[in-house]
């Protein structure tokens, strides 16, 4: 069944590509069928635990679905369907639709392939397909190929080589490519290899999950890819790194005596990623860039949870993995819809879309509340569990760092919403209409999903619980997760349902109160008719506050912003270039120069009286 689904994706990608050549509509239809049919088969036909063996090229590839990979593949397939529905109107009238559909389908296939791989060979093959298809997406619009594309490519290559090296070492020492074998026989490796292999693998996975300092490709790549793909890029593709990290953490690091040290280091890297990326997100003036940095930051939270590795922390991290895919998918769709309808994504250009694109605004609002981690939405559930886990695991300073990142996150959350939807309504944007239904419905569905999971997290706790039990956590309290109550070992409790009802009751009561009290006397006035110290702003006067939006805060964090890892990489690159330049002076390609080298060499040998001919 798994083989069939993967083959369907692969065949569908090619057929869609060819069909798109005939007519765009055929391409659209084929694309939807290609995504939805195998996805539907996945939801109905695949059972957790089934295993298939494929013999090819003298190797045995083993594919199967574990509870852990089932959890991740739900994200891939679910997000894939919604984004495919969204992508068709998004790509309408754009160049290179065929290439987009092809790479989209290949990405989904490769991610599923990674998740079902039970041996390192197929894991690596699918990993490379994923990297290549996403690379082609990043450079799809042809902008900044040099800067963005090469950066992404170099970092992906570093990750891939690291993984390849780890695979080769494992195979030469243990004689097997099977994941289960390498994990079980990990103790038989020498101590050096026991440390080397996890670090190599973590480098590979850290690149994909944009862990600092391996993150520099992410903001540019996320914002350069088409928005219909970035939702998948940030929501699902970067989660493959987390998937690998979970595997390495629970199988290899746990067996190491130095395991706690490595865990602490990675948790700190994750915390630093969360904080620093949040600060960078605040300074962005482009919605795509802002969300890209925010994705890097959210991955930081997840990495912290995975690295801490207590049952509660793992639960929080995996919960955030799913929820992040939902709200970030929705938010990238929002930006895509705005780009489609207005032609720009710069906060400083767009104003006051709230009355023109109300449904887009509602999805953005709900998703942002989930992103900020405010109850009663789903982001809060994972944040609460993460903080509890950190405090109970004695990571006191790290929890402060994360609190800081989360509070600073409100700044960019507000900047995002204010940038597009609020502020003064300008006649320049009067023509803007709401995005097509097929674009609005997917983002709205994802936003509502965060709402549901925020109150009934047990819907997600059950699959996460079985995934955790599969990787070896015995006591996650799974039997107690049935009542939409959050609790920790200390006995701290948050009951979500009464809170949701209270919030809704108060909110509805006061909204109705404000609406119905003196409705007749309350009239609507435009945003041009505002109180500004006795003056009446003219129609052409634009009083919107957008440029240097967070300037006071940026002044505070200025010393930090001066230090960019990107600059160090550039300096390193320049240094290498200087070295190559020097090498080029030696190897000029000129025969006479080489002749001189040969003579000089001989002269040198004679000088030292070396007997050349015996």
């Amino acid at each position, binding site marked *: 069944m798994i083989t069939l689904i993967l083959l369907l994706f692969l065949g569908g990608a090619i057929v869609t590509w060819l069909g798109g050549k005939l007519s765009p509509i055929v391409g659209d239809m084929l694309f939807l069928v290609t995504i939805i049919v195998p996805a539907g088969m996945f939801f109905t036909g695949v059972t957790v635990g089934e295993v298939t063996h494929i013999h090819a090229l003298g190797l045995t590839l083993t594919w199967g679905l574990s509870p852990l990979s089932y959890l991740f593949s739900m994200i891939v397939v679910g997000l894939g369907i919604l984004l495919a529905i969204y992508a068709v109107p998004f790509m309408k009238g754009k160049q290179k639709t065929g290439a987009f559909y092809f790479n989209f389908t290949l990405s989904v296939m490769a991610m599923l392939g990674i998740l079902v791989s039970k041996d390192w060979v197929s894991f690596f093959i699918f990993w490379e397909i994923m990297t290549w298809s996403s690379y082609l997406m990043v450079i799809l619009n042809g902008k900044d190929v040099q800067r963005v594309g090469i950066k992404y490519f170099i970092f992906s290559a570093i990750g891939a080589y690291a993984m390849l090296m780890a695979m080769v070492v494992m195979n030469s020492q243990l004689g097997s490519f099977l994941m289960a074998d390498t994990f079980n026989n990990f103790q038989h490796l020498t101590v050096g290899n026991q440390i080397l292999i996890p670090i190599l693998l973590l480098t590979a996975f850290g690149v994909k999950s944009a862990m600092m300092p391996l993150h520099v490709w992410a903001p540019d790549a996320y914002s350069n890819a088409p928005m219909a793909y970035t939702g998948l890029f940030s929501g699902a593709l970067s989660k493959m790194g987390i998937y690998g990290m979970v595997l390495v953490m629970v199988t290899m690091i746990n067996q190491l005596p130095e395991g706690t040290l490595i865990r602490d280091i990675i948790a700190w890297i994750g915390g630093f990623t969360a904080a620093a990326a949040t600060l960078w997100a605040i300074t962005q003036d482009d919605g795509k860039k802002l969300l890209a940095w925010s994705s890097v930051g959210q991955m930081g939270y997840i990495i912290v949870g995975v690295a801490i590795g207590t049952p509660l922390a793992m639960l929080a991290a995996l919960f955030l993995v799913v929820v992040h895919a939902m709200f970030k998918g929705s938010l990238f769709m929002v930006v895509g819809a705005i780009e489609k309808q207005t032609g720009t994504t710069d906060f400083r250009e767009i104003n006051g879309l709230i009355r023109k694109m109300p449904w887009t605004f509602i999805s953005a609002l709900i998703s942002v509340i989930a992103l*900020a981690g405010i109850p009663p939405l789903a982001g809060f559930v994972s944040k609460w569990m993460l*903080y509890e886990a950190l*405090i109970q695991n004695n990571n006191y300073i790290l929890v402060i760092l994360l609190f*800081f990142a989360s509070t600073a996150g409100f700044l960019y959350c507000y900047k995002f919403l204010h940038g597009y939807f609020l502020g003064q309504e300008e006649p320049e944007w009067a023509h803007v209409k709401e995005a097509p239904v097929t674009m609005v419905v997917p983002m709205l569905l994802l936003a509502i999903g965060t709402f549901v999971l925020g109150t009934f997290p047990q819907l997600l706790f059950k699959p996460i619980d079985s995934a955790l039990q599969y990787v070896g956590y015995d006591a996650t309290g799974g039997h107690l997760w049935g009542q939409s109550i959050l609790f920790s070992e*200390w006995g*701290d*409790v948050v009951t979500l349902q009464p809170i949701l009802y209270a919030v809704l009751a108060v909110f509805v009561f006061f909204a109705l109160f404000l609406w119905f009290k*003196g409705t007749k*006397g309350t009239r609507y006035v435009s945003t041009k008719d505002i109180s500004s110290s006795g003056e009446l702003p003219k129609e052409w006067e634009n009083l919107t506050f957008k440029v240097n939006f*967070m300037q006071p805060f940026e002044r505070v964090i200025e010393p930090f912003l001066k230090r960019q890892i990107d600059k160090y990489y550039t300096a390193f690159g320049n240094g290498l270039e200087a070295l190559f330049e020097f090498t080029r002076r030696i190897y000029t390609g000129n025969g006479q120069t080489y002749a001189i080298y040969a003579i000089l060499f001989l002269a040198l040998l004679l000088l030292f009286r070396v007997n050349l001919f015996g």
Partner: protein
Amino acid sequence: MEYILIKTLEAIATFILAFIVGMTYGGVVRKITGRVHNRLGPPWYQNFIDAFKLFSKTRGIHHGAMHFLGAAFLMVTSVVSLMIIPVLAPGGHAWYNSWFTNMNFNGDLIFLLYIMTFGPLGMAMGAGQTGNPNSSIGVTRGLSQMVGFEIPWVMALVALMISYKTTSVIDFMNIQRETGTWLMFANPFAFIAAVLAMLGMFRYSPFDIVGAPTELASGPVSENGGKFLFTMMSSGSVFTFAKLVLYVDLFMGGANNLVMLVVKTFLLYMIPVLYGIVSPRYRTEQAVRWFWGWPTFIGLLAILYAVMF
């Protein structure tokens, strides 16, 4: 059904208490400020008159749906935090004690930290839709300041959590009752850090950069009048009361009856008020840097103290 009805009535009673106390405090603060400034000042019940005037206005303007929802979001924060924070200590024996239980056992400190930011963010949306640049400027200032004071405040709370291995407000109150020591003496650094954070939380000078009457024409509140301003005003009063009660619960052992509650909250409230009366206003970046200076250092000391002892 009957249960829900009684619960609702109790919640309304708590709300009315918070409303009256909060409004009175507001009026008294205006009076005290006036006296310190060598003015006569308005009467202590001036806030009630203002609220009644705003409530009875029949005409007004709005700028769109979010303008309505912003004020409603603000109310959600005030009311829900009031419901979660225990108004009276669980050990008290006054006949009305059970009225103020509400939803005390449904949330903890981390929940409170987050629900307390829900309102300002929703309010910020409402302020944004009015299109008034002063509102947006006020909001960005307010959010920046929140990032500032949240650090020492969270550090103080984490210090308490480390010491007593709980995040529940009720548990902290029980611990103080059992040991007989208020947490402000058990971990003085945490109390100092929390009080310094409180200066920013209550937005009196030198941290009144959000409203900033002379620069921003009262910031996010501008463009609001009548019922909107009434809702915001009552929400502000209730929220002030809720925050004060939280401080009293955490550091001063809570209160067994309403009289003690009023005394303790009033004394605590005078710290930001009196400090504010004699202070000029900071710039935003100065305010944030101030919070990341000594208050954060004292917060670190609080955590160290909690780890060591």
